[in-house]
């Protein structure tokens, strides 16, 4: 498997080690959502540092993972997008706003804590 999923407290960390085929992307998406639901995760960190290329299908899938998780009350943060990959992704004419990004996993934890805190403050 080219994706390692591990749990850290309330968060799930999924590390994509190598490039994924379209079917692997679909499989990753359903597995992540299932695991997050089963573990009642509050956040998902998706490390895509191992990806040399993010095509529009993968970008769309990242977006749909983020949107799906939000419906379940969890936040998703994508980390490790390389500069050249970022440049390519913004050319897809795809609304990337739902995808939150951080530089690395440490930053992703900070961002998740901040966002989850913010959400619960909003609810109050």
């Amino acid at each position, binding site marked *: 498997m080219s994706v390692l999923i591990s749990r850290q407290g309330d968060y799930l960390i999924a590390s994509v080690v190598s490039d994924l085929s379209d079917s692997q992307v679909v499989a990753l998406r359903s597995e992540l959502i299932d695991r997050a639901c089963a573990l009642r995760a509050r956040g998902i960190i998706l490390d895509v540092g191992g990806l040399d290329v993010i095509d529009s299908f993968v970008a769309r899938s990242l977006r749909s993972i983020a949107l799906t998780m939000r419906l379940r009350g969890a936040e998703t943060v994508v980390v490790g997008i390389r*500069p050249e990959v970022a*440049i390519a992704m*913004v050319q897809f004419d795809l609304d*990337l706003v739902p995808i939150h*990004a*951080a*530089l*690395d996993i440490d930053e992703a934890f900070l961002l998740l804590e901040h966002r989850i805190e913010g959400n619960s403050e909003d609810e109050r």
Partner: protein
Amino acid sequence: MDTEATKTAQSSGAGDEINDRLLNELVGHLRSNRKALTEEWVGRVTEEQLLGVMTSEEIFSELTAVYDNYVDALETGSVETLQAYARDLSERIIPRGVETHEVVGIVLLLRDVLARSLFVKYEGDGELLNQVLDAYEPAANRIAVTVSVSFVEERERVIREQQESIQELSTPVLQVRERLLILPIIGVLDSQRARQLTEQLLQAIRTNRAKVVVVDITGVAAIDLTVANHLFHTIEASRLMGASVIVTGLSSRIAQTLVDLDVDLSMIKTVGDLQGGLEEAELLMGYGSAGANPADD
């Protein structure tokens, strides 16, 4: 090696031997009439108002030097010395604003002046005149092409160098403090520059582990839909790298244009000026440190 090869190639064949003899005679003629011909040439150049940026003494000394090199090139059949001289001359006159048409005009005038003097010299003998011209014309054409091309090449080299230095200068990514970058954009933002700028910014975000980037566009005079899209792509790509972007220095004109173009600005954090942008950035960074030490709350 090359010149030797061309020389041997030229001197092969009986017709070429006659050519060589005639060319030698021709060179002798041009050497002995050097003063008169140069003066006539300079006169024609001044008459046509070429090299207007130079004084008449300068024109005279430069043209005399060109004349000597020209005759040498005719004699040896090798244009390399002349080429080097033309490069050197171009380097001196390009910054003074000498145009391509002037250089081409001068070379063609010299060709014309010399051909006329040949007409006068061989007036009585049509046959010989033809032969001399056969020998002279190809060599003269080659020289004219060499000089013009050298000038244009030199000019292009200067333009390329300037473009490179502009490109290097035009996109400095500055670190203000830890994890806070400033990107001042000055001048015109075309697609090539936008791409280069994005690449540099993203690299800088990665190496400096930037959290916030302030993009200051005070120096951008005007913006259109294409430029706005470039800017959005840059901002979006930075966000994917995990950095927040604040845009500052939108002039009232640019702000109006963006609104008129119906560009959706809701996703972009904008602050009036750079100072405000930095204050906003510090606020954002503050969130980061509060998150880092949750115990402080």
